[in-house]
């Protein structure tokens, strides 16, 4: 059974904190993605990666960075969290078919 896992389902952080969201896939996929989803705005692509140590900006990269040191792991980093980064964060990986993790609901106070 294919699986994409995310480190937390719910996370509460304070403004200015550094936040790490971890994503792991077990399908040996080269392509991995981070999205955020907000009511009325749909899914928006933050960053993606086609290979280890590779990263590409998506549609809304400002305020975020990523790390891909191993093929199976893709991390999203909020260097200094702000209240407008309160959102649902979804990780995905893709071979032919794209699979999503369960999501992390991040609240920044």
């Amino acid at each position, binding site marked *: 059974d294919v699986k994409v896992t995310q480190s937390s389902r719910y996370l509460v952080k304070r403004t200015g904190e550094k936040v790490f969201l971890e994503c792991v896939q077990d399908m040996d996929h080269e*392509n991995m*993605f981070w999205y955020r*989803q907000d009511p009325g705005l*749909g*899914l928006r*692509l933050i960053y*993606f990666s086609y290979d280890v140590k590779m990263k590409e900006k*998506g549609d809304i990269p400002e305020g975020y960075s990523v790390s891909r040191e191993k093929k199976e792991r893709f991390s999203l980093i909020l260097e200094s969290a702000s209240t407008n980064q309160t959102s*649902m964060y*979804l990780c*995905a990986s*893709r071979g*032919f*078919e*794209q*699979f*999503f993790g*369960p*999501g992390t*609901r991040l609240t920044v106070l």
Partner: protein
Amino acid sequence: GIQVEQSPPDLILQEGANSTLRCNFSDSVNNLQWFHQNPWGQLINLFYIPSGTKQNGRLSATTVATERYSLLYISSSQTTDSGVYFCAVISYNTDKLIFGTGTRLQVFP
């Protein structure tokens, strides 16, 4: 870029009813997927169907690539079918999954 339109935007059904959801896209695609987003926010893969017809239990899907549309059929709907259904495509000139705006389905007992 490619445009993906879904209809209807909202659908309310009584348990046991059948429904058809439509996805139109503006360019040729080499990947088309249907997802169900449950009330907890998780995106569940329903079908990977760039062309042809597939069935999985009460759900089936058909993509007519030459006419640029896909249909998702839900038969004998159940309350657990409630949620948002997304169509998403990858066209030949991009490597990113582009999502439609979704169909929100509510099934009442």
